[in-house]
């Protein structure tokens, strides 16, 4: 029943969003791609500048005299940390997804049961989601995982054990733990909402038919949760691919490259070594990889989103 008229109106109404996002994507991305082909180090300026005519007095960027071909890409890909960064990124995303989806499902199942004080429990469980990533990184690092003054160290000493040194013995696992703490509430919330919309009669019918608890979970609940799980995976992947603050305030990507993910490696190139050319090359590679992951995700689970 969409008339010609409403189609035109629709196009008109969607265009501000599309145009803005297009600019948002194309201008920085365009500049990033341009920079990725330049010899462009912030602290060693070559003095070549050109002006692109926007914003009244123009945008000053390095001129094309510093063209360097594929050099930046070559240096970024052959960076000794590059391979580790790719693997760490995948392990980090995968690890957090695994914990939050399984944990979130279990939490949701538990919170769906009748109990006293359900509202308060729910408040307690979702609280970590409101905490700034910087704060949660700092708090876990100092107040909990610090091997001298942290609470875990005090507990270990109290039990007569050697305090565990989280950030040097299990750095990536520690980061995964911190990030999972932040995202578990999100997964729990979404899955709980989905669970609550499950038809009770369907469950009761299954129970009448003699399905035990495990069967009820796998054949009634899980299919019902599939779409919610898809949403959780999709949204979290978008955020987890660019995890940064938690790493910056806890391990600085180390020890060695144990917690360097792709985002952090780009940060090292462009904002610690100030090699914007190489950092931009890294950015371009990261975007390509992120889109591969995205396409992969869509293929794998995208059909769940059809409705």
């Amino acid at each position: 029943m969409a008339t010609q008229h409403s189609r035109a109106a629709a196009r008109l109404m969607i265009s501000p969003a599309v145009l803005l996002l297009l600019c948002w994507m194309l201008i920085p991305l365009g500049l990033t791609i341009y920079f990725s082909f330049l010899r462009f180090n912030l602290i060693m300026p070559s003095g070549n500048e050109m002006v692109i005519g926007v914003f009244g007095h123009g945008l000053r960027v390095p001129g094309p005299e510093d063209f360097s071909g594929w050099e930046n890409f070559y240096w970024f890909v052959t960076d000794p940390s590059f391979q580790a960064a790719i693997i760490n990124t995948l392990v980090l995303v995968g690890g957090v997804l695994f914990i939050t989806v399984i944990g979130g499902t279990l939490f949701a199942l538990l919170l769906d049961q009748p109990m006293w004080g359900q509202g308060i429990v729910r408040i307690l469980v979702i609280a970590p989601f409101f905490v700034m990533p910087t704060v949660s990184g700092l708090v876990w690092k100092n107040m909990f995982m610090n091997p001298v003054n942290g609470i875990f160290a005090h507990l270990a000493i109290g039990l007569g054990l050697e305090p565990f040194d989280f950030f040097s013995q299990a750095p990536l696992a520690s980061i995964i733990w911190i990030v999972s703490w932040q995202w578990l509430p999100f997964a729990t919330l979404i899955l709980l909402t989905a669970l609550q919309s499950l038809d009770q009669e369907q469950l009761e019918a299954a129970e009448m038919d003699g399905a035990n608890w495990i069967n009820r979970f796998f054949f009634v609940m899980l299919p019902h949760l599939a779409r919610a799980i898809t949403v959780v995976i999709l949204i979290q992947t978008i955020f987890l691919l660019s995890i940064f603050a938690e790493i910056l305030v806890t391990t600085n990507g180390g020890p060695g490259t144990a917690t360097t993910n792709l985002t952090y490696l780009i940060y090292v190139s462009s904002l610690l070594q100030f090699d914007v050319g190489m950092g931009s090359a890294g950015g371009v590679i990261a975007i390509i990889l992120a889109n591969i992951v995205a396409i992969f995700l869509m293929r794998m689970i995208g059909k769940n989103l059809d409705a």
Partner: protein
Amino acid sequence: MARAVSIRRKSITTAAAWALGLMMFFPILWIAILSLKTEGDAIRAPIEVLSSVWTFESFGAVQERSDYLKHFTNSVVISFGSTFLGLLIAVPAAWAMAFVPGKRTKDVLMWMLSTKMLPPVGVLVPIYLIFRDAELLDTRIGLVFVLMMINLPIIIWMLYTYFREIPGEILEAARMDGASLREEVFFVLMPMAIPGMASTVLLNVILAWNEAFWTLNLTAADAAPLTAFIASYSSPEGLFYAKLSAASIMAIAPILIMGWFSQKQLVRGLTFGAVK
């Protein structure tokens, strides 16, 4: 009829759920406790911490060093400003996609989401140069714009899935009655979508409030929100647990309280339409 649940079973679930809730909440509770201790007591063993004296001195010390109210105001302006600006652009777009879907609608949606995958660290220098030349560095309006752009895809998606649950016939009826498009969207669609819009607003305010890369890198003094405030406590300066705790509590308390009061709305709309 609800299934009869034995008291025993309910007790067990209650105990398990409370244990779980307290475990998740414990880190926040713990910094709240540490923030009320002296620096010397804050690094003691947990039992000793609890039995030591309580004091507000850390909050005083933090306030003396940084102007909390300024950072707080900036956080409020930036997070709410970017969310409402985003809503203004997202509502028409989501309407169009939900009620006049074309063949490419899903692709457009996925493309929008994929713009979120641009790693911020990779585009800081281009954005910084643009901000410099547009004189947007250290301005709230600049940050409102950036955070709006970052969260726009999520806003559009949430609204889209929510709008889709609203039967198109109702809008059609309004149109038959002679409502203009503007009236249709603002007086028919939006009131019906209030729960969904509320949770969209909440989620995006939370995301914007906690965004710590752009807010730190594009500000200096004037527009710096609470994420920048916390950055000056991020490395120990002597004994610092109590001050870090106090600063952390000050930074997260407003959003935490807002979240708690509005969690019902948040949950109601967090369905992304499709989940239910």
